[in-house]
């Protein structure tokens, strides 16, 4: 059980959401501190979007408690809505409005007067950065422009907490970098608490003060990226084999001096150690002695993806690559 802190922007206790017989979220306890960027990671279908939809009052929990900005999201949803902004998966915009009209409507629904809306639009100019296109129909915008407008719409009323559900999915690397730069600026310049889900671990690693990893509806790990990576050891030797890993290979490597742990997933071995440089040749020799075919052997420090592999049993980066390949082949059809 996570301790509740009055300084927390988001707190959930025993959060559960069921869809018929399926338990999509299963007892999640979260604490997101005010002013931090919290990265919420998980494989597809792990429950990320369901959690975020409950936090922003779009979905009622089956059980458990949610406090956002100090208010109960179930019994005081209007108080929560005044204090949050959200940009959900796929830019949620109306193609038949211009950018300016959309932001004006958004501002009006938050009770802002015309002058306030104009001032906020001016404030957000750098972020929007779509120039004359503000007067054009949104249907004519590129994917990156839509994402930036979506972000501006989520910020028009100066929320205390910003929820971003995979804000860069489907964008080209340049647009992705721009959005992530802006997210960093929103946090540092305005002090906005940001709850972020993403498939790009390197971005979560660079941006997030803390991350949580959800797997099969449960929070599997939580901490600062550094702490989580440290939990995997200071060095990792990653070995990709020609075939699947046999248990005796794992046992033999575990017997080597200076090895902290050995994890095996399909044809990949991960050897954790405090001194990778000294151990790498020993690992190579042992595998050679055992007649195990090695396709690739790498020595590196742990990444969030290694943490992800440890707690979920699969790499997020691989899923992401497969998904991108799928999208690409779909586009070619």
């Amino acid at each position, binding site marked *: 059980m996570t301790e509740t802190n009055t300084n927390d922007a988001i707190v959930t206790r025993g959060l559960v959401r069921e869809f018929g017989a399926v338990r999509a979220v299963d007892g999640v306890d979260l604490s997101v501190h005010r002013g931090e960027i919290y990265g919420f990671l998980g494989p597809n279908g792990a429950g990320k979007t369901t959690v975020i939809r409950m936090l922003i009052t779009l979905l009622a929990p089956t059980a458990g408690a949610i406090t956002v900005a100090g208010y109960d999201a179930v019994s005081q949803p209007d108080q929560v809505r005044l204090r949050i902004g959200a940009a959900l998966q796929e830019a949620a915009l109306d193609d038949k409005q211009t950018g300016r009209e959309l932001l004006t409507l958004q501002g009006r629904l938050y009770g802002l007067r015309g002058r306030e809306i104009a001032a906020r639009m001016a404030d957000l100019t750098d972020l929007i950065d779509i120039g004359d296109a503000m007067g054009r129909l949104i249907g004519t915008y590129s994917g990156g422009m839509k994402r930036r407008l979506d972000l501006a719409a989520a910020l028009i009323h100066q*929320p205390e907490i910003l929820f971003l559900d995979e804000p860069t999915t489907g964008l080209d690397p340049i647009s992705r970098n721009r959005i992530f730069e802006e997210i960093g600026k929103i946090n540092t*310049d305005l002090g906005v608490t940001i709850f972020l889900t993403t498939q790009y671990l390197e971005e979560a690693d660079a941006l997030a003060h803390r991350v949580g990893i959800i797997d099969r509806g449960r929070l599997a790990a939580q901490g600062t990226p550094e702490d989580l990576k440290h939990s995997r050891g200071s060095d990792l030797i990653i070995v990709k084999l020609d075939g699947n890993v046999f248990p005796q290979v794992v046992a033999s490597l575990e017997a080597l001096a200076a090895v902290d742990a050995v994890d095996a997933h399909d044809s990949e071995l991960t050897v954790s150690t405090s001194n990778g440089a000294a151990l790498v040749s020993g690992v190579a020799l042992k595998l050679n002695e055992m007649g195990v075919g090695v396709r690739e052997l790498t020595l590196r420090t742990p990444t969030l993806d290694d943490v992800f592999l440890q707690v979920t049993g699969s790499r997020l980066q691989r899923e992401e690559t497969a998904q991108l390949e799928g999208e690409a082949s779909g586009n070619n059809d």
Partner: protein
Amino acid sequence: MAVVSGAGGVTVRARKAGFFRDIFAVARRAVRAMLRDLETVIPALFIPVFMFAVTVGALQDFAETIPGLDYRAFQLPVAVLFAVTGVSRAITVVTDIQSGYFDRLVITPVNRVALLLGLLMADFVLIVALTIPVIIMGFIVGVGFETGLLGILAFMLLAGLWGLIFNGFPYAIAFKTGNVAAVNLSFLLFFPFLFMTTLFIPQEQMTPWLSTTADFNPVTYILAAERSLITEGWQWVVLRDGVIATLGVGVVSMGMALYTLRGRATRK
């Protein structure tokens, strides 16, 4: 309240806008979209003009063997109901649901009922506007109003009220299903309402079963009220029945629309 300093030093305070400001904000967006989508309005104008021309052309000589019946005046309210029935923004609700824009609206502090009333307000503007060319067509073919200018206004308002009330059905389907095909099926309701009534001939000339069915069809009373404004003058009882029939349908259609909106906006 949510107050965070802006990068440019501007500080704003998010608050509830208020019921009427919410309605006007939603309606303004809908009217704007309507003006950009004028091509969708053309069928709503073409169908009543076509039906009026064909029906009057085919049946006028035959129908006017009934003593005292001015068939063009008899058919004008039918043309107006054809023009105003089913003209709604329900498809755009589906588009909003599918694109996620509806979620964006719902996570603002907007009053949920205003999300429907704003659309209905925009619909009402269009519906009343659609009655104008039909009435002009009536003037061109020689249909005058016994009740004068006020009667014309009452005629437009009653038709507008019916169009608005009927729209509760497609909105209810849109909120419930979020599916374009399902919303289009609401057009099926159009047939029993508009055909199982005094569409072509007065009730006295109908077969007994259809006449009995027409007794239970609220559109019969709305048509009677509209026709009375053209040919009979101010018939308060007939007008009252027309309004009551419309409001009766409204209790059902708007009840369904509000119930499904609530379900869509607060996903249990």
